[in-house]
Each structure stands twice: as C-alpha cells, then as structure tokens.
C-alpha cells in the first residue's frame, strides 16, 4: 500500500499526487516511469515520474483523468492509499552535454518534463522548453518549468496565452534562429509525430518518450511493443525513449486504440455507478 501524501488539482482534469515510495524515490532517474494499480480490481497503468523527493521518500505523479483508472485515482484523497506502485521502470533519459536542447511538450506530457530539464541542465546544457496547451487553463506548472529551464516559450492553440499556434511552429522558429543539438519530445502522439517530421527534415536528432499500452511493464507480456527502425522493441525494457525519426508513429497511434471501445464501457460504468462499491 502506498500512501498519498499530498494532492493538488493542476487543472480541471489534471491531478498531481506525491506518494510515499522511498525505494523508488531513491533510485528513480529522469525519464523513468511507474506502474500503479489502484486496488484489487484495478488494471496496471504506466505513468511517467514527474518528480522525486529523495529526502522525504516521495514520488510525484501527474495524470489526466482520461479513463476509468485515472478518473478513479483522481477521486482518492490525501491520506488514502494506492494498492500497488512499481518502479522506477524503463531506461533513464540519455543525459549528456549536447549543447542546446529543446524540450517540446504538450498536454499532460508537460507535467513530466521537469526531471528531464533538471538532469539536462545539470549536465551543462542550455535548455529551451517549448510548451503547448490547447488553452491557458490547461497550461501546467508554468512557474516551475520557467524556473528550471534556461528559456520557456508557451504556445496555445487558441492564442489565449503565449504564442498562438502549435509547438511545431515555435520549434521551427527556434531552429531557424539558433543551433539546436537535440530535441526531446513528450506529449500526445500526434504532437510527437509532428515534431519528429519537422526535426527529421531539419536534421536535428530527436528523442521521444512513448506511451504504448502496457500490462506488466517488466518485459514479460509484449503489449508495449513498438516498431523502431523496422525492428520490434519493447517500451518497458528498451524504452520508453526512442529515436523519434525511426519510430513507426502510425502503428503506435493505431495500437493505442486497441481497447478504445472497452475503455469507454469501463469509464461509463464507473461514472454512472459512481462506483466505490468494490473498494472498501
């Protein structure tokens, strides 16, 4: 059992938890993820680690209320427990002194970039963060990201804050003005795909943090397989970060939709039943 030590609502549909998990906090590195299972009826869900407090033994997760599991998770409160919490999983981010790094994020992916920014900054890189959101209300952790990065550029789809447009427009602009050594993308798959297409054309190496469906997350089931450079790779063992220019994005987008219909059934049942019945 893993205790929720603090809870914060970052946007209407995005929640942040700090959980007590000392072993994970001690060993976690930037770019790694955890798998949680809310209770004995729960599914195993991967989430990127959004921060750690080694001293207090805490791990931060930030999640969008997307399906049943994350919606149910968002209803838990400080002092309550999550049944299972496994990590840190996956290969850490490849941290080196590259020079100038652009971190491009969108949606809830933005919540997970601070450990990566910190690690890259510490290695001596100039870090330009390009953060996209549909609208101002959905922009996450702006102050923290601004503080961590060398420079922060915000873009909103509707122009309600920062530059009006997509992160790819901003990235193109940055690349045209200065030499960018590497790009790191995390966010919705179509966004990462668009970033990869742009940087491939510009010849800038790009890493993307992939989020395929997972079950065990320990290299056993093969659910998270992705095609990279024509070869089958497992996101939980070989990833989650891969060379964005070599990822088969359309396959990833397709496979993420495997259980779309059933996920809807599960969420609707939960919302209609308001079901806390099997937890108690």
């Amino acid at each position, binding site marked *: 059992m893993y205790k929720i030590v603090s809870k914060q609502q970052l946007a209407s549909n995005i929640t942040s938890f700090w959980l007590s998990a000392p072993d994970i906090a001690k060993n976690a590195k930037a770019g790694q993820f955890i798998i949680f299972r809310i209770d004995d*009826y729960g599914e195993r869900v991967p989430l990127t680690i959004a921060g750690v407090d080694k001293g207090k033994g805490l791990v931060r997760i930030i999640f969008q209320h997307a399906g049943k599991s994350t919606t149910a998770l968002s209803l838990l409160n400080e002092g309550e427990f999550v049944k299972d919490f496994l*990590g840190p999983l996956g290969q850490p981010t490849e941290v080196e002194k590259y020079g100038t790094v652009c971190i491009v994020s969108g949606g809830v992916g933005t919540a997970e970039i601070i450990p990566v920014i910190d690690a890259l900054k510490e290695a001596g890189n100039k870090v330009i963060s390009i953060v996209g959101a549909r609208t101002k209300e959905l922009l996450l952790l702006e102050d923290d990201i601004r503080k961590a990065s060398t420079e922060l550029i915000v873009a909103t789809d509707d122009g309600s804050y920062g530059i009006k447009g997509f992160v790819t427009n901003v990235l193109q602009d940055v690349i045209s003005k200065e030499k960018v050594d590497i790009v790191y993308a995390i966010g919705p798959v179509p966004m990462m795909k668009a970033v990869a297409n742009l940087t491939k054309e510009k010849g800038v190496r790009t890493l993307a943090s992939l989020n395929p469906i997972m079950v065990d997350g320990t290299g056993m089931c093969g659910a998270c397989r992705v095609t990279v450079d024509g070869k089958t790779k497992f996101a939980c063992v070989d990833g989650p970060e891969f060379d964005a220019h070599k990822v088969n994005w359309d396959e990833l987008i397709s496979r993420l939709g495997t259980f779309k219909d059933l*996920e809807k059934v599960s969420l609707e049942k939960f919302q209609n039943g308001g079901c806390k019945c099997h937890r108690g």
Partner: protein
Amino acid sequence: MPQRIIMPQRPADERNKDFLEVNDGYTREQALEESKRCLSCKKPMCVTGCPVEIDIPDFIKPLKEDNPAEAVKALKRKTNLPAVCGRVCPQEKQCEKYCILGKKGESVAIGNLERYTADWAAKNLKEKTIAPKSNGIKVAVIGSGPAGLTCGGDLAKLGYQVTIFESLHSSGGVLRYGIPEFRLPKAVLDAEVENLKDLGIKFFFNTLIGRTITVDDLWKDGYKAIFAGTGAGLPTFMGIEGENLKNIYSANEFLVRVNMMKGAKFPEYDTPIYKGKNVVVIGGGNTAMDSVRTAKRLGAASVKLVYRRTEEEMPARLEEKIHAKEEGIEFCPLTNPVKFIGDDNKFVKSMECVKMKQGEPDKSGRCRPIEIENSNFTIDADTVVLALGLNPNPIFTSLTKGLLLDEHGRIKVDENLMSSLPGVFAGGDIAGGSTVIQAMGMGKQAAKSIVNYLNK
C-alpha cells in the same frame, strides 16, 4: 494387472464454457485402488525421473493403507508445492515414463496420486505449518515463481531467514499469470503460498530487483546469499508482415490479461480483453494449449491451433492436447503463417498461411519443417495469439554488474547453479530451465548449494 484408474473430469462441453477446474481428482476409493497398482519397487525407477526427487513409493505406500496423512509427510519432505506438481507436471515424460508397469502396460498414475494426497492435506490438515527456529542468516530470493518458491521453501525449512522479492503485485510467477484457473485453481496456489509464509518466508511485492533496489542494496542489507529465479521475459515474435495489427497478442499478454488481471470478468475488473469469435493460436507448447482453451472459454465460436510441425511433435503435455481436442479446438499442424491481414481500422481479420512438410531431422532430432511451394491459403481470425516461446528476462541480468550470461542471455551457472557472482545462484527459465518442474528442481538444487556455500 488391473487397469490404471482414469482421472475423473468434467464433460468437455460443460467445462469449455467456464474457468472451473477440468479434473475433479480421485475419490478416496479410486486413490486406494490406483495406489495398490504400485509394486513398491526396491529400486524405484520412477524417482530417477523426478526433478525434485520425491520418494514416490514412500508416499504411495501409505495410500494403499488409506493413510493419506503419512503420504503427505513423505511428499512434503521433497516438495513444497505438491498440489501444483500433481496438476502441471508432464508426468508422462518424467516419473511415469520410468515406472516399471509402463514397460508392458500402463504406468501407475503417480501425478494423480500426488494431487489426491496434496488435496487431502489441504482439506483435512488444519494445523498450521510451524516455522523452524531461525538461524538468523538472511537469504534473498528474486522472483516468486516455481523456482523461487521451491528454493525459498527449502531454505526456510532449514531455518534460514528468507525474503522473496517479486516485481508483480502477487506471488506465483507463471503459476499465477500463465497457467489458467481451469488447470491450476488459484486457491490451490494461494494455499501453497500460505504454507510458505507459515514457514517464515517474507514476501515483498512491487519490487523489481535491478530497478527498485539493486543486488548491492541486498548485500548492504545483510543478505548472505541470493537466488535469482527471474523467469522468462520478452516474448518471441515472428517478424512477419502485420504482426502488430490490433488484437494480435503474445500468449503472455493474453494469459496475463485473463489470469492475473481477471480480464474475463471485465468490466467488474478493470483490465480489458477482447473476446474474439474466431481465434487462432500459433504454437505447440503448453502455453499454446492454455491459450486455445482460454480463448474457447472466453466464448469463441472457433479456435484453431496452428503449428508448423506435426501434432506428435508438439511439446505440450499429452493431457493438455487431449483436453484441448475434447473441448473443440481445431488442430492445424504443418501450417505456418506468412502474414497477417488487417481491416480498415487495422484490426486483424485474417492470416495467410503456407502448408509445411517434414524434411530431414534437425539438431533437436525432429524433422525440419519445409514450406510447400504455392500452398498458400487464408484463415479468418479476429484474434491471434502468438505462443512462440520466450527469451530470458533481461532486466535483472542487464542491471547486475559482473553477471556473466550465455549467448541466449541466460545467467551462466556452474554445476552448483552459482553464477559468476559469488553468492548469487540462479534457476528456472533465467538459467536454462523451461518447465515448472525443471524450475522447481533447480530451485531445490540451488537451495542445497546455498547451504553448502554458507557453511563454507
């Protein structure tokens, strides 16, 4: 010579609609009658076929006198998981293969008698196992599958302070996530694990050694020896066109969703599984058999088993093949897929196969299957399960410095099952075992080696 007593089982078209156990187990009378067939050989050949060296005539003898309590004692001297072995061991390739009666007729049904004895104990022996006095020496076991449970159990019986670290959220390894309920009810596994807890073993879940904590952390924590039974990992894929279409699963994913995550009860349980109507499973081992029979129970109208060699060459346990056929699984031997075809939404809808024929024997002694030219044909399928085998789990091995591996990525061990790291032993899939009972045999051997190592 009286005939072997057949294991009573539920009718095929009743059992293939639910997940309840297929075999009912012997009645007292049946066990009595079957045990009397055993000749109590002075030099029991059956024992030589048992990877965990169970004193087979010693446990069968009391059964002849209707004294299962004595039988249990004899059984538990050598195995910590008798109710599991009685159900999942390929006895026809082990103990029963060497039974002297088998030379001229039918061997003694050793597996059935083992199961009867273990089940009798679970039902009738209410007193808890008492943990022996601890010797204070800490041993870490990594992985709670059959290798780890056996090794840990043997060491705990001797008073060692055993902790089992498991990366998943529950114990048992493949016994929990792989082998279905209808073959090994999880209540049986739970009872065996409870026994081990009574012996003083501590379990830590959600702990992936190498990531959550490391081998160095274990040494620092005062563990004096480590047993790694980290199991099979990465499923094998075929690398053919269309393999990543939706509803093409590895057998591990398919079985984990249904067994460990209880996907058959979705949406009561959160983990979804698509209940295909037209299912094809590729492979010929026990995992393939478990997959076809699981698919049938999820409600498939048609389930086909596609295998590139002949039916006789399928490595699965004989009973599983027979049960699968009885339950309406269609076997398609000498058939190999060449590509998968998807619909507009990239869900699999069919697969193209070729017919195979037997060629010259290969290294394994089996005939090499050869493609028959222009024999291509199509099989419709809305769900495909690939049961093609597994590679050793790479996480622990790649993150533990100094651990030497063989060319397959398995931990290299010496004749005592010790790895290149002093004090680190290994068994089961990760060290070259491939069945539950082999894993248990290796766990047992490693326990002996650990005792020797610690007494040096």
